[in-house]
């Protein structure tokens, strides 16, 4: 049983990181049945980065994702999400943090009794925007190509469309952090690519951070960074597109040959 480190031993909060994990340990169960699933995880996710989390089944990827999504209580280590420390928070406070995160699950989990628009509106209602909720929902669904399906119930939608509704629901409040658990698992190649392209564009345009758990090799190219988790430990952390992204994004002025002649 690892001793909990006091908060003072962790690095101070940083503004540029969407997710800041330090020496995180996580256990399932309690007492004799306690099983450790995450071992000393430390991870920095800068804002605006698209990160893919891969690894074999049972490696703890989904657990890490749910922890980052404030879905579980944490005791050991430091996990800061959008500036808020989650370790030690009670249920009430965790609920509040969840409202700033968009979580895309593997299953769409839509209410059969609500239309696509209503399902998305459920998310908007959390913010209190009752007067604009329908407009926001319809706009979000349109952005994902579902403009003509807003009043359909899930039973009249295909698997791919249902997943897109779920994604609309997760994104309608423009969260700064998007967590996705196998978002393309239930989708065909085109739908999957569309979804991932949408997330990529969203991240670039709005600067939101995306952390995605996936096995799907077809979409790995969209990531800035690929993190591999094996048996609860960080195995590798590569940045396939780092070359391009490490280039300073300076504007290029009108180039003249005089610049290159002394």
């Amino acid at each position: 049983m690892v001793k909990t480190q006091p908060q003072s031993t962790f690095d101070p909060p940083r503004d540029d990181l969407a997710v800041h994990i330090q020496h995180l340990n996580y256990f399932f169960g309690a007492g004799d049945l306690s099983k450790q699933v995450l071992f000393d995880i430390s991870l920095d996710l800068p804002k605006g980065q698209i990160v893919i989390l891969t690894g074999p089944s049972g490696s703890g990827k989904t657990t890490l994702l749910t922890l980052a999504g404030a879905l579980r209580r944490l005791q050991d280590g430091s996990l800061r999400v959008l500036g808020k420390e989650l370790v030690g928070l009670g249920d009430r406070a965790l609920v509040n943090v969840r409202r700033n995160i968009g979580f895309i699950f593997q299953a769409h989990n839509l209410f059969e009794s609500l239309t696509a628009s209503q399902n998305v509106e459920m998310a908007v209602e959390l913010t209190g925007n009752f007067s604009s909720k329908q407009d926001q929902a319809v706009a979000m669904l349109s952005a994902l190509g579902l403009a003509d399906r807003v009043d359909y119930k899930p039973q009249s939608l295909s698997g791919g469309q249902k997943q897109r509704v779920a994604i609309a629901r997760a994104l309608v409040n423009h969260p700064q952090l998007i967590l996705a658990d196998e978002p393309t698992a239930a989708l065909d190649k085109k739908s999957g690519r569309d979804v991932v392209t949408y997330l990529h564009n969203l991240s670039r345009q709005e600067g939101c951070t995306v952390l995605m758990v996936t096995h799907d090799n077809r979409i790995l190219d969209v990531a800035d960074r690929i993190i591999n988790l094996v048996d609860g430990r960080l195995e590798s952390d590569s940045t396939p597109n780092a070359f391009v992204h490490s280039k300073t994004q300076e504007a290029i002025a009108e180039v003249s040959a005089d610049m290159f002649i002394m």
Partner: protein
Amino acid sequence: MKFTNGAQELTYGRLQDYLSGSLFKSTMRASDDQPSFDLVYQDTTLIELQVLPWDTHPYPDIEMAIVRASSCVAIGCHPELDLLRFLLDENRKIRFGSFQTDDAGTVFFANRILGGEHMDPTELEVCLLSVGAIATRYSDIIIDKFDGQRALNSALPSKL
């Protein structure tokens, strides 16, 4: 496409990534069988970008590659001696890259940078811009001064 070593392949991939997002993205063309690209600078100047493996280098444990950017400036210039003197003189003033000639008397302007793991993207971009800018400027000067012509497949006056 066959690559000689891993560094060449890595460099090729990174060049492709860079070019797809750069100001050259609409004019770039990749070769089917060779690790090289063609791109157009400011609608007028064709730049050839090649990835060359570097087999003998100072670091025995790693692989390395070289990126060469070159542009054809003029052909058929004379008198040769004056031309060569001029070119060598100008080389001294030019910050990055140098003028080169081949057996046929074609004048190029080229620059090379280190590829592979340690290639720097800003350096790559500066390399491309300098090749483009110098080739564009000096093409007219040299053709004028030394009675040359524009090279085939280069210096197309209209937009591609």
